């Protein structure tokens, strides 16, 4: 039996498939999962999540979250998730510019600094993944 992969966000269930391999952006570096992986939980960075099914790669832009593996079941709890083909590059670029602008105005100890920084990283990640 292959891996099952579920991607859910607070707003909806994004994906539920079986696949051969999952690659995800962990906070301590990217990692891959195949069958028989040990039980594992990791925080995810905003970035590219890829799953391979029958030799074909499918890419998703995720905005941070969690991944949990147990019994060949991979569950991704993402804050946001979009298929690469669905990303609107123009909008992502606007969002990136906007977030960078806001970030410049904030000092490091501002309450919102971390949040804006995360927005910058998310937007940058989305642009990198679009159309792949």
């Amino acid at each position, binding site marked *: 039996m292959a891996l099952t992969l*579920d991607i*859910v*966000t*607070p*707003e*909806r*269930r994004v994906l539920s498939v079986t696949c051969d391999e999952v690659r995800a952006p*962990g*906070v*301590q570096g990217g990692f891959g999962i195949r069958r028989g992986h*040990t*039980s*594992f*939980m*990791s*925080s995810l960075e905003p970035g590219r999540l890829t799953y391979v099914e029958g030799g074909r790669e499918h890419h998703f832009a995720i905005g941070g979250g*969690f991944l*949990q593996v*147990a019994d060949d079941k991979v*569950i991704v*709890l993402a*804050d946001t998730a979009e298929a690469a083909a669905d990303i609107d590059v123009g909008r992502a670029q606007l969002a990136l510019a906007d977030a960078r602008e806001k970030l410049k105005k904030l000092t490091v100890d501002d*309450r919102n600094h971390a*949040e804006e920084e995360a927005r910058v990283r998310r937007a940058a990640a989305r642009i990198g993944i679009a159309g792949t």
Partner: protein
Amino acid sequence: MPSLRDIRNRITSVKSTRQITKAMKMVAAAKLRRAQDAVLKTRPYVQLLDKALGLVAARAAAEEPESVHPLVAQREARVAEVVVITSDRGLAGGFNSNIIRRTQRFLTENGDRFERIELSTIGRKAKDFLKARKLATRKDFPGVHQGLSYEKAEAIGQEFVTRYLAGEVDAVFLCYNEFKSAIAQTPVVVQFLPLQPPAVEAEAAIDFIYEPSREALLAELLPRHVAMQVWRALLESAASEHGARMSAMESATKNAEEMIAALTLQYNRARQAYVTKELMEIVGGAEALK
């Protein structure tokens, strides 16, 4: 006795009211469907998040009971805060006033438990109602209902987490309408800080490898759990609002129809009386000429 024309005018006016209430009912029904869908769509995330959180929290509690995460730790509650969630618009039956009444009951019942209870509001009606009752509010979150999104819920949740960790508030409650069905909504008060970690089943004893660490994961999962609580409350409240409005408009339409029937009857009687009177006059005149 109102004249024929008066009655006719009233019938026209009630008819146009009926048209409006009917339209509002239909709009509410359509929105209700969408709101219900949104509630259902959060279910998988909530279930999986609760499960993951339960797993991590249970193991953490079992292995190091002394180092509980502050969001879960019980502490002496001095300052409480109630977040009152209503709609922005009225004409939804008892939807908003039920919430306000529930809030007031909570305040009288729990007044002794805390040194101070603060209030904050989501939705214009909550703000206006509390102001009218001269209850001071700490903060209003404006414009949450327009373009309701998870991000807004997250921001609100984040604010309370920050305040809670800073010790500005020791317990936070959400007061909102829980969605039972299109015709039934129950106002509830739910504690959301400190968190009550979701219970885990016994089979949860899988030993995970955690990255970066169990504490770090817990610190990431808990705020998301908080945000989800707010998000769910907002969605439930939205669904309840549309449900309440739908049934309110349904009965308003029915009332209008009854009124139209009654007025029509009155109108016909008055007309008949008028016709009879005229006939009598004509007959009386003819008699006189004989």
